[in-house]
């Protein structure tokens, strides 16, 4: 009998859900391409100082030789100053290197989006599980707060708060403000799933056998939320990349001279007719990053879903 059980385990070897999902993603061309692009962006963000060292242009170094001061500062050359000296061209007027600014901007965008996702997830999971597990008055209070936050015109309010806050550490403020308005969307799902899970037999069995509340929450319920959490957080990152860029675009994000993609696009608005590359390059990077993250999240969900159905 032990032999039978053993051989069954080897033969049937139900791949762990993590491995199965990874396998499914590896066979998906769109998912692989997205991951590759994201890896490139992350690498570029990490190596930003190295890129600057190689090209010899920092993100805030002016290069007046690259722009035509007689024509109001339009970059020399046809495609916004793209050439051997500046691989992605230069900004009009001051001639800052766009590649360096994109690389340093990626740091800001990704860091803020990831930090906001982490904080949102923490708030969403803790409060959602509190509401779903204890129900009663805790649930009532948390649900009312969620209703309230979701009724808020979040974008207008984020801009209003950020513009009235003193100029402190903008990045931290951005993360906090984005998370405060973002957690209810995650918490709502977590709450619903926790409620269902809390009444399932295996949780009751654990409770009956004397498991502490902590053990119930961390060993029984949380592991079962994992797949939906992975999907929701992956899909939240592109949203926050977009929000950060949007807020920076509107002038309430990271303060110049710190480069950010949204801010670069904002400063290109006045130049779009004469120097289209100036908005096209940061715009393309932003678009492809958001798209890759969305595709990856989408495929992750499909992979998890097909596993549940099987």
């Amino acid at each position: 009998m032990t032999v039978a059980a053993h051989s069954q385990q080897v033969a049937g070897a139900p791949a762990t859900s993590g491995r199965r999902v990874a396998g499914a993603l590896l066979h998906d061309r769109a998912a692989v391409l997205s991951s590759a692009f994201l890896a490139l962006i992350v690498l570029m963000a990490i190596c930003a100082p190295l890129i600057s060292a190689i090209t010899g242009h920092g993100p805030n170094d002016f290069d007046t030789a690259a722009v035509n001061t007689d024509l109001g500062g339009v970059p020399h050359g046809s495609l916004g100053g793209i050439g051997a000296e500046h691989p992605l061209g230069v900004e009009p007027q001051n001639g800052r290197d766009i590649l360096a600014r994109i690389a340093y901007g990626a740091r800001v965008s990704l860091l803020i989006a990831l930090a906001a996702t982490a904080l949102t997830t923490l708030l969403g999971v803790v409060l959602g599980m509190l509401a779903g597990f204890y129900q009663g008055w805790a649930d009532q209070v948390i649900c009312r707060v969620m209703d309230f936050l979701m009724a808020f015109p979040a974008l207008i309010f984020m801009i209003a708060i950020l513009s009235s806050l003193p100029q402190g550490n903008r990045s931290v403020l951005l993360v906090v403000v984005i998370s405060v308005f973002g957690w209810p969307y995650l918490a709502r799902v977590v709450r619903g799933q926790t409620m269902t899970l809390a009444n399932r037999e295996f949780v009751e069995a654990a409770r009956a056998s004397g498991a502490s509340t902590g053990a119930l929450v961390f060993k029984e319920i949380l592991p079962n939320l994992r797949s939906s959490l992975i999907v929701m957080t992956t899909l939240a990152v592109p949203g926050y990349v977009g929000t950060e860029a949007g807020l920076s675009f509107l002038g309430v994000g990271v303060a110049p001279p710190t480069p950010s993609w949204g801010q670069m696009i904002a400063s290109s608005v006045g130049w779009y007719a004469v120097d289209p590359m100036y908005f096209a390059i940061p715009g393309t990077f932003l678009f492809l990053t958001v798209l890759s993250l969305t595709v990856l999240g989408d495929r992750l969900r499909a992979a998890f879903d097909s596993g549940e159905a099987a």
Partner: protein
Amino acid sequence: MARYLAGRAAGVVLILFLVCLFTFVIFFTLSPDPAVMICGKTCTPERIDQIRDVLGLDEPFLAQFFGFLAGIFAGRDYGAGANLVHCAAPCLGYSFQTNQSVWDMVVERLPVSATVAVGAAVLWLFLGIVAGLLSAVKEGTWWDRAAMGLALGGSSVPNYVLALALQYVLVVQLQVLPFPQAVAFSDGPALWFQSYLMPWLVLATGYACLYARLTRANVIDTLAENFMRTARSKGLSPALTMRRHALRPALTPIATIFGMDFAALLGGALITETVFGLNGVGKMAADSIAKNDQPVIMAVTLLAAFFVVIGNVVVDLVYTRLDPRVRITAR
């Protein structure tokens, strides 16, 4: 039903009150002193005191807050004696920048916002639902894959990037459209349409892509339901089963999401209006925030919250009409 409505109305009032309080607290505690800002460069301490007195800024927080609330419902007076200014019933105060009545500013700009919002909504509902339906019916074909790929891509373009790209291609390069302006319909329908076409496209793209994906998913789910199998086995043609049996359950969730998205459009159109320089409520919000014009920011925040909250109630009420499986029970 009456009890349900009363309960919802109370909820609406409570949330709006909280939004108001929250916004007020933020500005009261965080913002630089408005009196100093209004006073400008040639300023004397006496002048600052006078401004504080007229606007009631020297009063304690609660007095200011309830003064603001009272102004909305009953109107309020600013200053005293010869300087007395009466602000009639829906009083949202006066802009610190232009001294204009905030209510009048909102009323003046609302038509532009409404034009942008309604036009975009028509466009995205039509495109999204048609593309989604076609994709669902032709599930797995090249059309389905192309449309859904496009929808995924389209929902990833930030609308300000799309706005700049469209402007560059259509206005600068091809010169087929004029630069967007808030042209009135009476100035000529053709010009009006051309001027608003780009803002509509920009605002509608993201939503249309989202709605196409939602419609497709809903229709595919509905087609797999038992009642659809029954309808098919009765021998109804595919077109008839689709029209009579599938559309309503598949599109009901879309209707509720549409209600909420449309209600949130006052905030959602902010970037579109700003990029194209259309003088709607969204642009007014962006401008007022840039100049720290608190009464205007308060008004726009409150107005946007009002639309969202009312939108939620309307959606819930309409939902019971659209989906007979849902009935309102007073809690």
